[in-house]
C-alpha cells in the first residue's frame, strides 16, 4: 500500500535526546493502515511513549520522516487529525465531565447546540450518561479514563493515540474497558495506536502487536493477531489466544535477555 493510503507512515525514524545523548529510537519503519489496532509493547524505556509523542508532533524526531494521513506530523496536529489519551486522565478539575468532553469542540469553535449534541452522544458511547454534570474528582479512576477517551474521540479524529490508558486500573476494570474500547473502535472505525505493558491486553485488542527492544529503541518484531472480530469475553479463552500471547511473550523475553547482555 502506498504512504498516501496509510494513516501513519514512519520511515527511518530516529530520536536522540540531547540531554545525556540517549538514543531513544533508531531506524523505526512502520506503516499503519486505516482501521488497524496497533499495540506497542516492550520493556520500560524502549521508547514507546517517545514514538507515540513523535507521531502526535509533541516531540520532534532527530531523523527520518513521519506522515499522518499523508501529511507531515506537525501539519496533521494542526489539522487535529488525532486524539490522544495518556495514562492519567488529565481532566480539568474546574470543568464538569460534559465540559471536559466539550473542550476540543470549543477549541474547534463548534456552536453550543452542536457541542451539546455531540457530548451527549459521547457520554452514551462511554456509558456515563448520568455523570455529565459531575466533576472529575467525583468519579472513579476508570470512569475518569472513559471521560478522557470520550474527549479524545469527541471531534472524530481518524487516529487515536493511547499511552498506557488503562495502566493504573485494576484488572477487572481494565478488562471491562478493553471490551468497551473495542466496541468504540468498531463503531467509530478509527485507527488506534496503543501503548501497553500487558501482553494479554495487547493480544486481545490488536490487529498487530509491535514488539520493541530497548537501548536503542528498535522494532524487534511484529506479530499479526488473526483472532476473529468482534472479540469478546470468550476470545481470552481460545487456544489461539494463548498461542499468540506465548509468541509475543517469547519475543519480549528474547528482547530483554539481549538487552541485559553487555555490549
Amino acid at each position: 500500500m502506498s504512504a498516501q493510503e496509510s494513516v501513519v507512515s514512519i520511515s527511518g525514524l530516529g530520536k536522540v535526546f540531547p540531554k545525556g545523548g540517549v538514543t531513544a529510537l533508531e531506524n523505526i519503519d512502520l506503516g499503519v493502515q486505516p482501521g488497524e489496532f496497533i499495540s506497542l509493547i516492550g520493556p520500560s524505556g524502549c521508547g514507546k511513549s517517545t514514538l507515540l509523542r513523535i507521531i502526535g508532533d509533541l516531540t520532534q524526531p532527530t531523523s527520518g520522516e513521519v506522515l499522518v494521513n499523508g501529511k507531515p506530523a506537525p501539519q496533521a496536529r494542526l489539522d487535529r487529525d488525532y486524539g490522544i489519551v495518556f495514562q492519567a486522565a488529565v481532566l480539568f478539575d474546574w470543568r464538569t465531565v460534559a465540559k471536559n468532553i466539550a473542550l476540543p469542540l470549543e477549541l474547534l469553535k463548534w456552536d453550543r447546540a452542536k457541542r451539546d449534541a455531540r457530548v451527549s452522544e459521547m457520554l452514551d458511547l462511554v456509558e456515563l450518561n448520568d455523570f455529565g454534570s459531575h466533576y472529575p474528582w467525583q468519579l472513579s479512576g476508570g470512569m475518569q479514563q472513559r471521560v478522557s477517551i470520550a474527549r479524545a474521540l469527541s471531534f472524530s479524529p481518524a487516529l487515536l493515540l493511547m499511552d498506557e490508558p488503562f495502566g493504573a486500573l485494576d484488572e477487572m476494570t481494565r478488562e471491562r474497558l478493553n471490551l468497551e474500547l473495542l466496541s468504540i473502535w468498531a463503531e467509530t472505525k478509527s485507527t488506534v495506536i496503543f501503548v501497553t505493558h500487558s501482553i494479554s491486553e495487547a493480544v486481545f485488542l490488536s490487529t498487530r502487536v509491535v514488539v520493541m527492544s530497548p537501548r536503542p529503541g528498535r522494532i524487534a518484531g511484529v506479530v499479526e493477531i488473526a483472532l476473529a472480530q468482534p472479540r469478546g469475553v470468550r476470545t481470552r479463552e481460545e487456544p489461539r489466544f494463548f498461542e499468540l500471547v506465548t509468541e509475543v511473550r517469547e519475543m519480549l523475553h528474547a528482547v530483554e535477555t539481549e538487552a541485559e547482555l553487555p555490549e
Partner: protein
Amino acid sequence: MINVIKRVAIGIAVLVGVCAFYTGYRELFLATGWTWPFEVDDITLPSLPSIVGALFDPVQEDGELLISLLFKAALFTAKEAFVGFVIGTIVGFTLGAVIARFQMLQRGLMPYVVGSQTIPILAIAPIVVVGLGSLTIAGWTPSDWLRVSVISAYLTFFPVTVNTVRGLESADPRAIELMRSYASGEWAIFLKLRLPSSLPYLFGAFRIAATACVIGAIIGELPSSIQGGLGGAIINFNQYYVLNPQNLWATNLMAAALGISFFLVIVIAEKLLVHRPPETLT
C-alpha cells in the same frame, strides 16, 4: 449548611472568649491594682460597655452619633480600598502574566517587584498622596481619595503578581501537551488552561490583598488632610484620646470589621467561582 452553622458558632464563641478575656484582665488588674506591664484604667483599657455606649453618643454637642460617623468613614475608606484593590489586581496580574510568559523577565523583574515591598509604606504614602497632589493627566486631576487608592494598589499588586506567576506556571504539563494536541496556540492555552489553573493561587493572593488594601487606604489617609475616612478618624480621635479613649477603640474595631468584610467577600467569591476537589482528595 451544618458546616456554616458550626463555623458561625465557633466565630461567636471566639468573640465571646476574647471579650471575656479583655473584661477579665481589666477587672482583675483594676481590683488588685497591678501595674505591670502597664497601668490599667479607663484610659488604657476602656470597658467594653463604655466602647459600645460611645458608639451611640453624639461625637460633638448635638453632632451625629459616633456609629454613624464611623460607618460613613468606613464606606469612604472601603471605596478607596476597593478601587486600590482593583487597580492593584489589574497591574499585578498583568505583570505576573508577562513575567510567566517571558521567562527571561522573571530574573530581571522579580527583584524589583520584591524590592518594592521592602520600602516602608509609611515612606511612600506621603510621596504619593501629597507629592502627587498637583498631578494632572491630560487635564484630569485625580481626586484625593484616588491617590490614597494608589497606596492600596501598591500593597495589593505584590501578592497578586507573585501568585499569578506561580498560578500560571502551575498548569499540568500533560494538560499543556493535551492542548497542543488540539492545535491550541499560547493564547488558547492561557485562557482554557493556565488561567483556570491559576485561580486558587489568585484567590490566595486576594485573601492577603483584601486586608492589606484596607490597611493601605487607612495609612494613605494619614499624611494627607483627607478627613472622610477611618484614617482621618484615627488621627482625629488620637488627639483627644485622653478625653475620649472609647472613640479610638471604636474606630479600630470598625477598621477591623472593614478588613474582615473584605476578606469574607473574597472567601465567598472563591466558593462560588472555584470548583476544586475537596482538600482531602488532593
